């Protein structure tokens, strides 16, 4: 069984995002970039399926500018067998990304495609669902448990009402939630090994994926701030403050 993992590079989750004063974007010069946390979880799950002998090959794919090679080497060091770099100068909106990923799916014919449930830069939470739809295959989003058995998978999903279990036929798309697993740490020898693993580079234009007109972001603004309020010294003062606001 082959697994394809969509592995996006994003601004590290610890970075405090600053909006540029002229509203033209957020400051990304010099900020730390990391794999999308959910994609690390997706990759870890794929590696565990390979460790268990369920999967034989794990392929990671990213759509990103030319300087994203170290990002893919990182995924290879974590344990992926090979990587595909679709070079695109501009970020793609989710339907465009899903269309490009569909082209890779058609080439690679994976039995399972794992993605993160959302990319923490655009917070779109769309790409996996769109890929499943374009591909005409099942989706199980927000997965916190995944069992693959023969041509089927059983997935536990974190939903607002609790935990939902779905059974899906393979091939299928699964998107990873935070509690699916805890990604492994990369060891130094693995970084060395990753250097010789196959990394294929493709131009987005050569994939021939269709993408409709893109949304335009016309302005960036900082969120409406909340400011520091008052400090109270004990429970009695807290209750008094709440009563004054009519909250209790």
């Amino acid at each position: 069984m082959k697994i394809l993992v969509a592995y996006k590079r994003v601004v590290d989750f610890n970075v405090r995002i600053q909006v540029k004063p002229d509203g033209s974007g957020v400051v990304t010069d010099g900020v730390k970039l990391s794999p999308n946390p959910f994609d690390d979880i997706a990759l870890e799950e794929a590696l565990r399926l390979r460790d268990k002998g369920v999967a034989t090959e794990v392929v990671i794919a990213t759509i990103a500018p030319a300087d994203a090679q170290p990002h893919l080497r990182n995924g290879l060091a974590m344990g992926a067998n090979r990587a595909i770099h679709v070079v695109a100068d501009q970020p793609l909106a989710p339907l465009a990304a899903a269309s490009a990923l569909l082209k890779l799916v058609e080439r690679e014919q994976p039995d399972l495609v794992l993605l993160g449930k959302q990319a923490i830069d655009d917070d779109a939470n769309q790409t996996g669902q769109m890929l499943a739809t374009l591909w005409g295959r099942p989706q199980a989003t927000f997965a916190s448990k995944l069992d693959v058995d023969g041509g089927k998978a059983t997935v536990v999903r974190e939903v607002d009402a609790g935990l939902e279990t779905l059974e899906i036929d393979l091939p299928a798309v699964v998107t990873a939630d935070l509690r699916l697993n805890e990604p492994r740490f990369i060891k130094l020898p693995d970084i060395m090994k990753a250097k010789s693993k196959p990394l294929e580079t493709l131009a987005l234009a050569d994939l021939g994926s269709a993408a409709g007109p893109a949304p335009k972001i016309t302005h960036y603004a900082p969120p409406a701030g909340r400011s520091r309020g008052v400090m109270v010294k004990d429970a009695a003062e807290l209750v008094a403050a709440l009563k004054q606001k009519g909250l209790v």
Partner: protein
Amino acid sequence: MAKVLVVAEHLGGKLNSATARCVSAAAALNPEAIDIVVLADDLAGVAAEAAQIAGVRTVRTVANPANAHPVAQVLAPQIAALAAGYSHVFGPSTTFGKDLMPCVAALLGVEQVSDLMAVEGSHVFKRPIYAGNAIVTVEMPAGSAVVATVRTASWPEAARGGSATVEAASVEAALPTHTRFVALAGASSDRPDLQSARRVVSGGRGVGSEENFRIIYSLADKLGAAVGASRAAVDAGYVPSDLQVGQTGKIIAPDLYIAVGISGAIQHLTGIKDAGTIVAINKDGDAPIFEIADIGLVGDLFQILPALEQALG
């Protein structure tokens, strides 16, 4: 003029209040009409509830045993078929809508607006990115249908008292059988629902254990509040995952939010930015939660919470 189709969310024969919030977002377009579509197995109760939302013209129902559980790949083709004639299709930014609406968008061949916070024009909206650390104005391509999930914390519930017509819609759509619902382990409780409660008491890693969480529940009961949690508290197994508040949990806007033993990571704060009053109780006076709290109290939660219950009388 805009015509909006709102996808109803429901569970156990009850309409989710997120639907009425989507109607408010739809109304901000000043549309010619707002219709609601209810897809279900047995839908009488839900359709009747939806028909009472003010401003709704028609509730269109699709009864089908295949719709007994909200399987996105089953619902999406039906919604896409019904979307003809509408300029906008809205669903809530709940796990239901997040799972489903991108499938509808893909079937219609359009990008989706996630977490719609404000309407600036028929194709111009505001939405948050980077865990709410930036708000962008996004312009969707003119002339194409707009599919969006509505950030429920940004919109009030539309009023009741409407009387929309309820009519059965017929849809021609091939429905897949490749995805089968197995079970829902509901955390259904008698407590107020986290997403619609006016008061919420949340516990974090500082609470220390599942057992200790009893003091959070106890304060919540006293206040008639829902219970929430940080990711760390969920990860540690103190409470079930559906209590998580934040970027990847629930985004809520209660009148009162009490954060207990929560440090205030950006991923948590993004879930509570729209709360009316935020109270923080933390033993570390430098915890970032105090930078945004309206009322802060530094101290040991195990002493403060019992005292607070007593002071509340």
